[in-house]
Structure formats: C-alpha cells, structure tokens
C-alpha cells in the first residue's frame, strides 16, 4: 500500500482549512443533501464530503457509511489532496497503491473510488467530494465533471458561510472593540460608529451621524480632519491625530488609523485614545521648556550677562511652560518704613496706549515699582503664599485693572523664597482652563531657581556697584600714578620690573616694553657700591632702605646718568610681594644746591677778605701800631675786634655747614691723643676769652689715643666749649673730661649753667637754633656750632649727645678708637 504524500503547501493548507471552521462541526442539511443527491445520481452506495487534516480525514457529510473519520495514511482522499487533481480508481484490486489497503481488504471493502478536490479560491485542496462502491466501475468524463461541479458547490457554500462568519466576527469585534471605529463616506459623513464613541464621548449614534466631524472635533481641528481624510483617500496618509470633543466639556486626543476602500468608496477608521500620552508628552515638553529656561537663566548668571535679560528669559519660559498669555517676575523690596513693594524686572508688554508703552519701556531698564498691595499679587506678598484666581472678575481679592488693560480671565501669583526670606514674586495670567495646584507643584523647581536668581541679582547689583566704586578708585589712583612726575616702578624680589608708569619711560628714556624686560638694577645704581640694586634682595621693611628716600643714580638707555632720590616700599598685593621704587630726578635740585653752595662759598670767601683787613686794621690799632690809644678809643677798638672775630667765626661756620650739606667736609686722619686736643681747645678758649671769669678745667687722667682728625675734633671741642662758656654764670667752672670706654674715647664738656629748656631740647642740633631766641639776648653765637659739631662727630663715626642734670648741662661725644667710617676718608 502506498500512503498519500503531503502536499508542498501543507502548512498553509491546514491554516486555510481551519479558517473555514468546518472540522468537527455539526452535520448540516445542506451538505447532507449534497451527498445524498450525488449517491443517487451516481448510483453508488457511498458518497462523502471529506476534509483532510494532519492525521485523518473527517467527513462533514457521509452517505452510506457510519464512520465519521479514518486515518489519513489509509485514506484515498489523502492522495487527491497530495496531487491536487481528481482521483479515479476503477478497481482497487488492480491498483498496487490500494490493493492491500485495510479499507479495501477489510470493511467497507472498497473496490471503486472517485474523488474530486475541494479547492479553495486560493488553490488549497482541503479534501474531496468522493463516491465509493464495493464493485469495480468506470466513470465517464461527464460524470467526473458532475462530481467536480458538486465539489465546487460545496466549496462555494463553505466560502459563503466563512464570509458570513467573518463578517459577524468583525461586527462583534467592531462592537466589542475598546478602540474607536468608524466607516466614513467620501463626503465625510460618518456612516457607522462603534459604541466606544458613545462610551467615551457620550454622544449617541444618532448624534454622531447628525453632528459629523464638524461637530465632534475640536474647533481648531475641523479643517485638519477634512484635509486628513482627503489625504487618506488619495493614499497619501494612513492616519491623523485629532481632539474629539466630549459631550458637555473637554476632549480626548484620538489617534486614527485610516484606510480607504476604493471598491466600496468608504474609509475605515480605527482610533485609540492617546489623551494620556499627549498630556504626558505635553507635560514632558513643559518640563523640558521649564528646565531649558532654568538652565538658560543659570548660564546667564554664570556668564554674568546683563541681569535684566535673566528675568526676561525666565518670564518667557514661564509663559511657555504654563501656557499663559502674560505675566511678570519681580523682586520684593523693602521700602519706606519696612513696607515691602514689588519691583518688576520682567513684565509682558501688554501696552495698550502710548502712556502704558512708556511704562513698559521703563521696566526693561530699571524695573517698575508697584507699591499698592491691595490686589491679587499684593495678596501673595502679604500672605507669603500662592494665589490662584480662576474667576478674577468676581474675586474679592482683586484690585482692578487700569482702563485699557487686557481682560484678566485667570491669575496665578507665586511667592519666591530664598531660605525663609520672601525675595520675589511671579504672576501669570489667562492660562486656558485656569490654574491649578498641580501646576503650582509643577512650577516648584522653577520657583526655587527664580529665588536663587533674584538673590544672585541682588548680590550682582551689590558687587557691580562695589566693582564700579573700586574701578573708579582704581582709575583715580591710576590717573595719579600715570600723571605723577616721579617714576613709579614695581618689581619683584629678583629685581624684575613688573610695572612702570609713564613717567618712568620719560625719566629713563626707555620704552615700557623694554622696561618690563629689564632689571631694576640696570636702572638704578648705588654710586657708593656700583653694585646696582643687589642690596635690595636682602631689604626688609625695617631696614632703613625701605621707606626713607635714598640718593641713587639713575641710568638712561643711552647710558647717561642722573641723580635720583628713590624711596622703596614693600607692597603686598594678594599673596604677591613686590617692591615699589618711587624715583625722582633731582638733577635740578642738585644743580640749585650746588649753585647755592658755590654761592655761599664764594660769598663767604669774599666776606673773609675784607674781614681779614678789618681785623688786621683793628689789631694794629689795638696793638698801638698807630700810636698808643686813649682808654676810650681803645675800648671801642676792642669791641670792634671782638665783633670782627665773631663775624669771622660765623663765616667759617657757614662755610663748614655748606661743606656738611654737600658732603665735602674733609677729614685728615692721624693718631691723636684726644687729651692733647682738649688741652689745645681749652688753651684757645682761654686766649679768646681772656677776660672771662669762667674757669676751664681739664680732667684727663690718661692719654686717650684714637685715629681721627685732630683739627675737626678741635673744632667740635671749641664749639662745645664756646657753647658752654656762653651759658656759664660768672665764676663758674667748665669741666672737660676725657676717658676711654670699650673701644671709644669719650669726651664730656659740662657747664653749670641754667640747663636747656625742655621745650628746646629736641631742637638743640638744628641750625640757627638758639634757646633764647625770643629772650633778651644774654649770649650770642652763630647758632651753627652745635649743628656742625654733630655733623663732624657723626662723620667721624661717633655720637654726640647731651644730658641735663640739676645745675648743669653735659655735652658728650664718643669717637671710635679703631678706624673711623670709610666714608670719612677722603
């Protein structure tokens, strides 16, 4: 026996078979009548309508046998299914395929078989319409055709029924679907709508067909729907999203999938509710807009752009995010008597006339102040909480709008906090559908940012004004530095020049660029060491070098030099330590000084010559060269002689002071016993003041040698003695004591005069200083003696000072025993 093969399209064939829903179905009269009719027509005992599935053939209708199915491998119909063509077996015993088939060898003992395929329109063979006999037979061609005709009839019936079932399924589906479904006429008329419409939109079927799209979609979408349907019809589109109105109020977002059926000339629509999704997307978009706006405002803050723009940006973002038509953002400022008011930094321009336009222009620059708080936004300030007014016209809290102001349909006012402090306020108006607590919650992060930004704005304003003040003061300082006639040079501790003012380029004849590459040591040198500014490296603020002006030499770019007075100062800027040199060209001053000094010198010299003659002449008279003088004339000549001597001393002193000033006081050093010098000084004093009753006493117990200039020491001693003598009462003594003291020779001149008035003590060594300047002139002197004495002792490396004791004054100077200051050589 040969079992039937499987057709190539077996899987699809089986699916097709299932679509008809015929397997294992109840017997049906229409098919039973077919088999009976065929059995009678062909005069065969058995006729069957057989469907072949995976493992069996199942008889939908059978005539002449009782079995409802047989296994597929023994079925004759399986062969028809496999080959797709009618099968006629005239005698099974003559056919090797079937002679040992159990249906042939056993019941129903088939000898003859003829089967016509049951073909679907797609060409799948689902089974057969077959006839069977227990004796061999033949089938004429027209008989086979008849059998095939019946087979086609069976399939047509099945096909019709399948379509009817499908239609019913769709209808049920249409009704039961949780999606919107509709069939629309080319005119846009809604031919059919499923109950979802009613459930979700609350319109009845009648209302739906009556209202049509025009009455069922959001007014803004009506035109869109028409266009979309046209596009679907022309095949350009397969769907559209639209807001479907709900009966009463509100709407749903519905996304429609559409297909046009050209045959029926209708459009099928299936739609589902995407309201949630749209809302979520809108929310996300709003959040995104809000975030974008916050981050932009923050970046403004970071980039320090004009603060006015921060608020404008925030307001724009706020209006977008809340769907409001206008609004404001302002700062809450404490006004007079602690009464807060609102200062708007950003305000939607809703100007309605020229006057209001002017006001809005003001907002852009300085902000507009609103002081009246008896209104909706004022309420936000006074209650420090959100104010929602969705029907402002009847709200008792409203304050009224100026005539011409756009109508207020809804208002939301929110306080802005920084910590606990109310720093600002924002207000938005006329959001469609009004404002809600949810929106307030949604705006939470935005509010925090606004608070921060207002705080930053305030800080910025403070900082800006501080910066401005600083800048002005810096500009003033810079102007002073730039205008200064003195060169001002800043340099680091290595001497590298960091900054220099214009006077520096002038003074040194060097370009700024060159200066900034130079060392301060190439500009200024110390003529005493010629080592440049080496010494500055070790300079400390407490060194004499820092602060007090020193005389140095400035070097111009061409190598020429000029005398410079320089003060050095330490400057700390931040952690940077700089030195600043203020350099003044003192060439002119030096020249004037030299002229003055030369003048003094030459005048003194010119004075000295006639003085010599005067003194000479008087001396000769006094000496009796011109004959003995009478006592009267002789006394007068003495007087003139004394004055001439004083004048000589004055001229000498002035010459010495000139030398001290010019630093040209010369010293000639040698081994000197200061006791000898003291003795000489006393002898000179005795000679000069031969008539005085004051006694000079020398106390010099041992020789006191030191290396010094004896003539200058003599000069010092003479000045001190002369000074002591002037203030000594009659018959008093002046003691001169010379002693040694650890490396120094100390010489003290003590008188027993009235002492130095305490108010004068600070000026003792000043030039032309005399204690009794305003008193009756008891004593006379040049007023230069002590000043010269101090200068000489200083330059000899010693120290001259005085002390007043009960009943006397002691001037004491010490001279170093070893070598004197190098500067004194010369």
């Amino acid at each position, binding site marked *: 026996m040969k079992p039937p093969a499987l057709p190539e399209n077996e899987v699809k064939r089986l699916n097709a078979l299932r679509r008809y829903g015929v397997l294992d179905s109840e017997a049906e009269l229409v098919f039973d009548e077919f088999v009976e009719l065929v059995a009678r027509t062909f005069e065969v005992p058995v006729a069957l309508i057989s469907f072949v599935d995976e493992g069996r053939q199942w008889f939908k209708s059978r005539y002449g046998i009782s079995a409802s199915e047989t296994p597929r491998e023994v079925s004759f119909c399986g062969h028809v299914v496999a080959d797709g063509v009618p099968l006629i077996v005239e005698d099974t015993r003559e056919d090797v395929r079937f002679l040992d088939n159990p249906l042939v060898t056993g019941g129903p003992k088939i000898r003859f078989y003829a089967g016509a395929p049951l073909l679907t329109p797609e060409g799948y063979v689902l089974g057969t319409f077959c006839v069977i006999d227990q004796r061999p037979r033949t089938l004429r061609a027209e008989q086979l055709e008849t059998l095939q005709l019946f087979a086609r009839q069976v399939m047509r019936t099945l096909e019709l029924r399948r379509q009817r079932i499908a239609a019913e399924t769709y209808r049920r589906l249409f009704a039961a679907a949780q999606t919107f479904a509709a069939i629309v006429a080319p005119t846009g008329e809604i031919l059919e709508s499923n109950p979802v419409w009613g459930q979700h939109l609350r319109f009845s079927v009648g209302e739906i067909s009556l209202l049509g799209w025009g009455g069922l979609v959001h007014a803004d979408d009506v035109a869109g729907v028409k266009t979309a349907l046209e596009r679907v019809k022309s095949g350009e589109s397969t769907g559209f999203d639209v807001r479907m109105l709900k009966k009463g109020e509100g709407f749903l977002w519905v996304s429609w999938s559409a297909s046009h059926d050209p045959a029926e000339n209708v459009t099928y629509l299936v739609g589902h509710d995407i309201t949630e999704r749209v809302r979520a997307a809108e929310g996300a978009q709003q959040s995104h807009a809000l975030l974008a706006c916050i981050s932009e405002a923050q970046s403004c803050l970071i980039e320090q752009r004009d603060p006015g723009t921060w608020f404008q940006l925030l307001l724009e973002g706020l209006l977008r995010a809340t769907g409001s038509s206008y609004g404001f953002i302002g700062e809450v400022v404490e006004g007079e008597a602690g009464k807060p008011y609102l200062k708007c930094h950003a305000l939607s321009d809703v100007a309605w006339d020229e006057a209001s336009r002017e006001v809005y222009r003001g907002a852009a620059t300085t902000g507009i102040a609103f002081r009246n708080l008896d209104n909706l936004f004022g309420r936000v300030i006074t209650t420090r909480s959100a104010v929602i007014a969705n029907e402002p016209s009847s709200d008792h809290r409203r304050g009224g709008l100026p005539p011409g102001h756009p109508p207020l349909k809804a208002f939301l006012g929110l306080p802005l906090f920084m910590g606990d402090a109310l720093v600002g306020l924002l207000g938005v108006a006329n959001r469609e559908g009004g404002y809600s607590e949810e929106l307030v919650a949604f705006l939470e992060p935005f509010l925090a940012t606004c608070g921060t930004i207002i705080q930053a704005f305030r800080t910025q304003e403070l900082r800006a004004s501080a910066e401005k003040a600083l800048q002005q003061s810096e500009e003033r300082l810079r102007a002073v530095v730039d205008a200064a006639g003195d060169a001002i040079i800043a340099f680091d501790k290595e001497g590298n020049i960091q900054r220099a003012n214009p006077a520096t380029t002038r003074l040194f004849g060097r370009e700024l660029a060159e200066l900034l590459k130079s060392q301060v040591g190439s500009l200024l040198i110390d003529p005493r060491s010629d080592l440049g500014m080496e010494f500055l490296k070790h300079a400390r603020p407490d060194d004499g070098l820092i602060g007090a002006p020193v005389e140095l030499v400035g070097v111009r770019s061409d190598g020429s030099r000029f005398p410079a007075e320089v003060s050095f100062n330490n400057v700390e800027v931040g952690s940077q330590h700089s030195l600043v040199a203020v350099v003044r060209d003192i060439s002119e001053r030096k020249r004037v000084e030299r002229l003055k000094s030369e003048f003094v010198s030459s005048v003194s010299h010119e004075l000295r010559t006639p003085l*010599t003659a005067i003194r000479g002449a008087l001396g*000769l008279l*006094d*000496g009796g060269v011109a004959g003995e003088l009478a006592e009267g004339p002789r006394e007068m000549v003495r007087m003139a002689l004394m004055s001439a001597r004083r004048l000589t001393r004055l001229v000498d002193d002035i010459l010495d002071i000139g030398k001290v000033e010019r630093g040209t006081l010369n010293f*000639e050093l040698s081994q000197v016993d200061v006791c000898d010098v003291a003795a000489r000084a006393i002898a000179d004093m005795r000679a000069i003041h031969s008539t005085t009753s004051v006694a000079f006493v020398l106390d010099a117990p041992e020789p006191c040698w030191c290396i010094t200039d004896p003539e200058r020491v003599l000069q010092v001693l003479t000045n001190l003695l002369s000074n002591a003598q002037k203030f000594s009462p009659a018959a008093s003594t002046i003691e001169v004591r010379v002693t040694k003291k650890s490396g120094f020779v100390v010489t003290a001149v003590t008188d027993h005069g009235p002492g130095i008035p305490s108010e004068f003590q600070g000026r003792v060594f000043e030039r032309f200083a005399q204690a009794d300047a305003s008193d009756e002139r008891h004593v006379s002197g040049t007023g230069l003696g002590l000043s010269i004495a101090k200068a000489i002792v200083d330059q000899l490396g010693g120290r001259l000072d005085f002390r007043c004791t009960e009943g006397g004054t002691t001037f004491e100077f010490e001279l170093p025993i070893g070598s004197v200051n190098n500067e004194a050589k010369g």
Partner: protein
Amino acid sequence: MSISKVLVVDDEPDLRTISRLSLERVGGWKTFLAGSGKEALEVAERELPDVILLDVMMPGMDGPTTLLEIRKRAALANIRVVFLTAKVQKHEVQAYVEMGASGVIPKPFDPMKLPSELRRLLGEEG
C-alpha cells in the same frame, strides 16, 4: 739768615697795607709790595727780598704758580716763601711745603703777631 727785606704779594690793597704796617712797625723790616704774581717777580728781581709772603688766591697768576716761577729764576731761587691763605687744610699745607714753601700763615692773621709767626716759621726765634 736774618730777615731785613720782606715782599708782600696780595691782590687786596687793604691787606697789603695791613701787612706792610705789621711788618714794618711790629717787625721792623723793610717791606715791598706787589699786587699780582707778575709784579711780584719784577719786584723780587729788583729788590731781592729775604722772604716773600705770597697770597694763594689771586687773579691771573696765583700763589703756587708764582712760587714755581720764582724757583725757575736762579737769582730768586734761594728766597724763602711763606704762603698767606685762608686755605689751611693740612693736605694743602703739605702740598705747599713740597713745592718749596717754608710755611703757611692762615688768614685772617693777627697783624700784631704776624712778624713773630714769620720768625717762628723760618726758625729765627728772637
């Protein structure tokens, strides 16, 4: 060698007069006067004084130059010269002595003591 003739050289007439009075009346010497270095050379060559008192600062030929000129002339080579000057710094005195001066008398001088000072410098005490 005792002094009998002194030449005073000074550009200041008053000082020449003072000096002359001092040297003649107090010292008892014959005194000649010259107002400049140039005149001094003429007078010295003519009178051959024992001592020349020479002012340092003079217009034209100054004291030291005049001394050098004097030393150039054989006839005058042995005449002793004493400077009369306001410049009495030790190094200056040293320089004058090295040039051949016998000493320096500082200005202003006491005319009553000038002759004795001169004698002291020239080693002719008494």
